[in-house]
């Protein structure tokens, strides 16, 4: 890459300044402020005062925090696995020369670019026990006697949120997987088939190892996005029924903007930050064991 001259560097900074300023004012400063607030008592109306680690202690002693944390982990795990597996299956299928290939690719990608607000409203009605299309279809097909209460039963509500997330995000993961699949050299497949390998074996021994860098990237992004899920819960269930869909970010929002407990809410934010950081770090460390980089071989 060409080295920049001193004056070019200076102008680059001047052009970048507005963007950096925005990042500083709207991302880094609030992040820093909430770190400070996580050690303070504040209810928006009075003056914040220092309480040390009290907020962290209160949050970690709150059974609802742990329930919410457990729910979030379950949600991230189940929806993450479903997303990865289904997106990979779709990508492998759509990587072949089939009829309507571009139509299907577009169709599966469409939910990802549709705003969550409209999607959630529509899914809210799809899930409706008495008027919803899903229950109607299942009953028409005689798969169900009674309608599934979906959003209105603690046993099914989280599944409803999982299904919505998988449906919405699968297209994005599929596109990334497709890009990974297309980068695999056809000569590898040719020689494998010449040696008489079955498609199944080719998938496990060639396709999968060759796309591990993609899998790694998609895995990390799915994990982070999963932990940060908020909008679907806010719009569909508001954390209910009986806290069954109280994901951590939504619980944090409730603490801040419904109970006006900024201190504990900021503490939750930083605990979540640490959790994501540690999990990402672990994934990063483990990648050497299973991710295959071509330039390393």
């Amino acid at each position, binding site marked *: 890459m060409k080295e920049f001259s001193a004056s070019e560097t200076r102008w680059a900074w001047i052009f970048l300044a507005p963007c950096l300023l925005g990042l500083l004012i709207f991302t880094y400063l609030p992040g820093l402020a909430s770190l400070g607030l996580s050690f303070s008592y504040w*209810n928006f*109306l009075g003056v914040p005062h220092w309480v040390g680690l009290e907020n962290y202690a209160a949050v970690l002693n709150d059974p609802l925090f742990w329930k919410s944390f457990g729910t979030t982990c379950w949600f991230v795990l189940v929806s993450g696995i479903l997303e990865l597996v289904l997106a990979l299956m779709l990508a492998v299928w759509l990587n072949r020369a089939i009829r309507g290939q571009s139509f299907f690719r577009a169709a599966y990608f469409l939910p990802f670019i549709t705003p969550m607000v409209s999607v959630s409203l529509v899914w809210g009605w799809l*899930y*409706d*026990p008495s*008027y919803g299309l899903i229950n109607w279809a299942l009953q028409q097909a005689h798969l169900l006697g009674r309608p599934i209460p979906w959003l209105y039963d603690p046993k099914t509500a989280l599944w409803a949120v999982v299904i919505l997330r998988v449906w919405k995000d699968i297209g994005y993961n599929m596109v990334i997987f497709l890009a990974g699949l297309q980068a695999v050299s056809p000569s590898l497949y040719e020689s494998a088939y010449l040696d008489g390998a079955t498609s199944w074996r080719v998938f496990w021994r060639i396709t999968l190892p060759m796309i591990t860098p993609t899998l790694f990237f998609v895995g990390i992004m799915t994990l982070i996005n999963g932990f940060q899920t908020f909008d679907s819960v806010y719009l569909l269930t508001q954390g209910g029924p*009986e806290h069954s869909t109280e994901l951590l970010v939504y619980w944090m929002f409730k603490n801040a*903007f419904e109970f006006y407990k900024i201190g504990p809410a900021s503490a939750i934010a930083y605990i979540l930050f640490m959790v994501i950081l540690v999990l990402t770090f672990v994934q990063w460390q483990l990648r050497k064991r299973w991710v295959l980089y071509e330039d390393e071989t």
Partner: protein
Amino acid sequence: MQTLQKFKDRGLGKAWIPCCALLFWIFLLSCLWGCQSSSNHQVSIQLSTWGSAQEIGVLRTLLRDFERTHPQIRVNLVHIPDNYYQKLHLLVASDLTPDVMLTNSISFPIYASQGVFMDLRPLLAKSPSGEGSLSERQFYPASLRAFTWKASNGRELLGALPRDISDVAVFYNRNLFQKAGLPEPTAQWNWDQFLEDAKKLTVDTNNDGDPDQFGVSFYSKPPLFWLPFVWSAGGELFSPDLRRVILDSPEALQGLRFYANLRNQWHVAPKKVESGGVTMSQLFLQQKIAMMVNGRWSVPVLREQAKFRWDVAPLPIGPSGQSRVGIDASGYAISAKTAHPRESMALLRFLLSRNAIAAVTQSGLIVPARRDVAESNLYLAPGQAPAHGRVFLDAITDGVPTHTPPRWNELIEELGLALEPVWDGQQDAAVAVKSVKPKLQHMLEIGP
């Protein structure tokens, strides 16, 4: 690149870079400055309010009148249709508290306890007498009590003046009562008659074993829908000094059980699965529930959309011998930090004037807190449904004025969670209340 080369050839060298940067920054900064409006001799005050498009239409017309009669004052309307208090909290936190704000009595203690509102009593005393004067005597006492805050030093503060009173009544479908051969409810009806009627109004029209028409609505939250049953049974949520949770008294538990049984034991109210995403108002409009417990705010929609005859009745008399509902209120408060107290008070006086309250009342939306409007045909609207609109006024006498601790939102979340299994018929009220009581008690004790 060719263009760039041309610039360079003309000897401009690298001068184009600073030029671009300069233009770029001028553009950016002018965008920012453009947001600020130019100031003139007028005093500008902010008024924050919630409300539907129709309500805002009425308010804007009123504000135009105000600005005509007060040419030196300009009112900036801050309309917050949803999540009103979240936004208001942020405005207060950013030191941008609106000069005049609409608040309800449930959220009132949060702000009053933090000194956000100005004490209106001294300002009222200075109010001009004669035509258009404003005094406490003009309002229902319960609505004033809802906006009175007792500070820890014992000083009392009147933090807002009431615009309207929100209490609940039973809206009923007269056609369905007639079809079932039932006499319409009177002010004397009690829980037994209410239940008998609800049972007869619950009908399985297509004989599939599940009712398609229910006797009565069911809301698990907010508490204003189930608290009347606790109160009418003789129970209470908190002790009068807000220090103790007493929802575990036998009377309160009886109220909770009666309400839960409407849905579970007698099944005269729809379960969650049966109503799904449809609101009780929609079910009532579709004639799928015959009685709906709701507030005055339902009236405009019903007048417009109901394809049947309907009326209102008080909530039935409970075992305590009384029918008691919550008396919440909405009213206007002035920021303690306003730079324009005189202008703000002028606006407040105007918004609570007989004419302004009459204009808001005529849509049918509110029960005015001003007695002269409430007791007139402006509110009672003869010839229009509901014929017994007076029910909302009569309920004020025996009603329970709002009495919420500052941590109300959190308390209600916790209590609502504990009661969910009760409303679903999976737990007895006594068990649920016992399990949640220590937590609620703790929230009362730690204060705001």
